[in-house]
């Protein structure tokens, strides 16, 4: 018993000494500026590793800044987390959130514009280097609130082998709605009992059908909202016409699967040969390339009155509740990570569209595009790309549209009636902001 007690006493003394030493140590070190930042993961691949790698590299170049990357789930969870943190009193310093969250963040007085941080000519040149299509969702009221980082557009993937089998030219994807319908009719195969074994085209409608729908609307001549985010145009004839076309693909031409088409399983449907053409994000490129057992192509979305696609993805925002030192540090990181080489590297590794033109001119990107021309389709579509649906009270106004789209696609309402109701709800929600 005595020996044990003596041993324990020695142990206790050692532990105390160690504890005291550990407590004293930090007092002698210079406190670096801490920059916690939330980032979502929306594509497959070792994103966490890449982000952690960026943080480590950045800290090597900037030893006085300590980045704390925090994985915050999907885009949905990330904005929820960020706003909960804002209301709870301790938000991060910066965060990658959806470009469409801009108005919500402004309304919650959660973020500061970048204009206060852009002081030098170099900074101004850097800001001007981003694609205008991506900046549309990043600026409002003359100020810049977000910096594009992981952005995408919708593109058309098509199965070249299926095209060949149906007697279509595999190097000529449909360029207009009429062509897409005609091609889809040839591509839709049925078995002896009349059950469809391969659909011509599918446009996902689960979760956030508004994004894919926006492609149709832009192609039909208008966009869904105004630049100030205070008005939406759900019940305009062009919008209803676009929805009618989508519904016709299902009911009239019978080339599109009925009911709600799941977003998550659409790439798999394509890979399984269950559908010959699909509308989905360019972010799927790496996945399709890796797993496709057939020759496939990527094309811009077909035009009706014009070409068009919504942009998508996330921007960097800087939060209000941060010290000036933290904001400067975050700004340094944002500039660093959006340098052309890094933007190119990010685009290659993740499948997002590199957000600035000079990133596409870097040697790595040039080589990548040479080996994989499909990667450049999203970039080539950028001149026709328009802002993603984004308004005040964004999530709710969008939900009104989503519900209407799903109602029309499941046949419970006509396109005109569904859109009229969606417009009514959206007007109610947006009235306080006008």
């Amino acid at each position: 018993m005595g020996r044990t007690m003596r041993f324990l006493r020695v142990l206790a003394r050692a532990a105390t000494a160690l504890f005291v030493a550990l407590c004293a140590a930090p007092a002698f070190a210079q406190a670096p500026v801490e920059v916690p930042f939330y980032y979502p993961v929306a594509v497959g691949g070792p994103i966490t590793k890449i982000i952690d790698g960026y943080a480590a590299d950045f800290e090597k170049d900037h030893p006085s800044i300590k980045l704390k990357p925090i994985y915050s789930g999907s885009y949905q969870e990330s904005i929820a987390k960020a706003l909960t943190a804002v209301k709870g009193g301790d938000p991060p310093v910066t965060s990658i959130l959806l470009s469409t969250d801009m108005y919500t963040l402004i309304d919650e007085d959660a973020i500061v514009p970048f204009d206060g941080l852009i002081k030098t000519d170099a900074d101004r040149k850097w800001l001007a280097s981003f694609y205008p299509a991506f900046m549309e969702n990043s600026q409002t009221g003359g100020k810049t609130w977000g910096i594009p980082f992981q952005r995408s557009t919708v593109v058309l993937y098509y199965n070249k082998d299926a095209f060949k089998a149906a007697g279509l030219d595999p190097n000529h994807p449909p360029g207009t709605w009429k062509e897409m319908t005609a091609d889809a009719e040839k591509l839709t195969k049925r078995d002896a009992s009349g059950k469809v074994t391969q659909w011509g085209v599918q446009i996902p409608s689960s979760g956030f059908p508004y994004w894919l729908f926006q492609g149709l609307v832009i192609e039909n001549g208008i966009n869904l909202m105004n630049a100030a985010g205070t008005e939406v145009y759900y019940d305009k004839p062009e919008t209803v016409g676009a929805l009618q076309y989508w519904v016709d693909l299902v009911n009239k031409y019978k080339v599109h699967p009925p009911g709600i088409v799941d977003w998550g399983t659409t790439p798999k449907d394509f890979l399984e040969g269950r559908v010959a053409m699909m509308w989905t994000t360019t972010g799927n490129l790496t996945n399709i390339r890796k797993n496709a057992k057939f020759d496939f192509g990527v094309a811009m979305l077909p035009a009706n009155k014009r070409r068009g696609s919504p942009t998508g993805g996330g921007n960097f925002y800087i939060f209000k509740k941060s010290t000036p030192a933290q904001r400067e540090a975050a700004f340094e990181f944002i500039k660093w990570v959006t340098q052309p080489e890094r933007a190119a590297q990010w685009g290659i590794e993740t499948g997002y569209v590199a957000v600035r033109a000079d990133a596409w001119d870097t040697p790595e990107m040039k080589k990548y595009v040479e080996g994989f021309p499909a990667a450049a389709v999203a970039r080539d579509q950028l001149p026709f790309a328009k802002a993603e649906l984004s308004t005040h009270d964004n999530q709710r106004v969008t939900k009104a549209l989503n519900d209407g789209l799903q109602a029309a696609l499941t046949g419970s309402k006509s396109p005109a009636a569904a859109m009229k109701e969606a417009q009514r709800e959206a007007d109610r929600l947006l009235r306080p902001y006008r």
Partner: protein
Amino acid sequence: MRESGSVRRSRGADPVIAWLLLLPAVALLALFTHYPAVANLVHSFYSTPRANHPSTFIGLDNYRNLVEDPVFWKALVNNLWYAFGTIPVSIALALLMAVWVNGRVKGRGFLRLAYFTPTILPMIAVANIWLFFYTPEYGLLEQFLGWFGLGGHNWLGSRDTALPAVMVVAIWKEAGFFMIFYLAALQSMSPQLAEAAAIEGASRFYFFRRVTFPLLMPTTLFVLVNAVINAFRMVDHIVVMTRGGPDNATELLLYYIYEIGFRFFDSGYAAALTMVLLAILAAAALLQFGFLERRTHYQ
């Protein structure tokens, strides 16, 4: 709630010791249940604070919006169907499973494992697997039905079948869990009862109905409370599989509250919705503890 036949302790020490025993639990409850609940009630009478418009007292406006909100009514109706669908079925299945595993069927060990496995798997993971089961064209259910020449249905993507499909997942998750409790209760039943019934010549169903089932009432009450709570609490599979769609066909109350509170950040309205949910749970609790407790036989 006075006991007959008081305990012979010194009266002075009683309350002090009792309160000391209660203190930790009551303190935590006050902090994480009562205080937030009251705060929630208060918030439901105020507008949602935004950066430029601080929260103002608006009386019953949130509740007025609630009554006029078609999505709320859909969520409420959905949740009631969901509760009435999943609760009896999962309890009945649990009882059936317990009876089977209690020694009348070959391969008990495997069956017990099979029935209980869903409990161990987190819903967030298995919901994705169920998504595969329900996938049209090449999902497991489609493949299976295809053997019989049936199929061709979009289970999660059509308004009529989405909610039942999601209920199946919930029942699958819960039944095995409840089975364990029934199993323990069945095992603890006195064997003499069975022997007496055999001697009297009672039929199996009669024995079950008049003897077994009443004796299982405490377990049924226990299981029922859990089932009711789960019917309103478990929305993880909605998050993964349908996100409330198509067109709110699988929108459940708590999921709607989550959407309103954490996607639309309308905390005033979310607070009002929460009060409705709490009222429903209060009614359910009163029903269970008031009505059923009286009919429970304790051995």
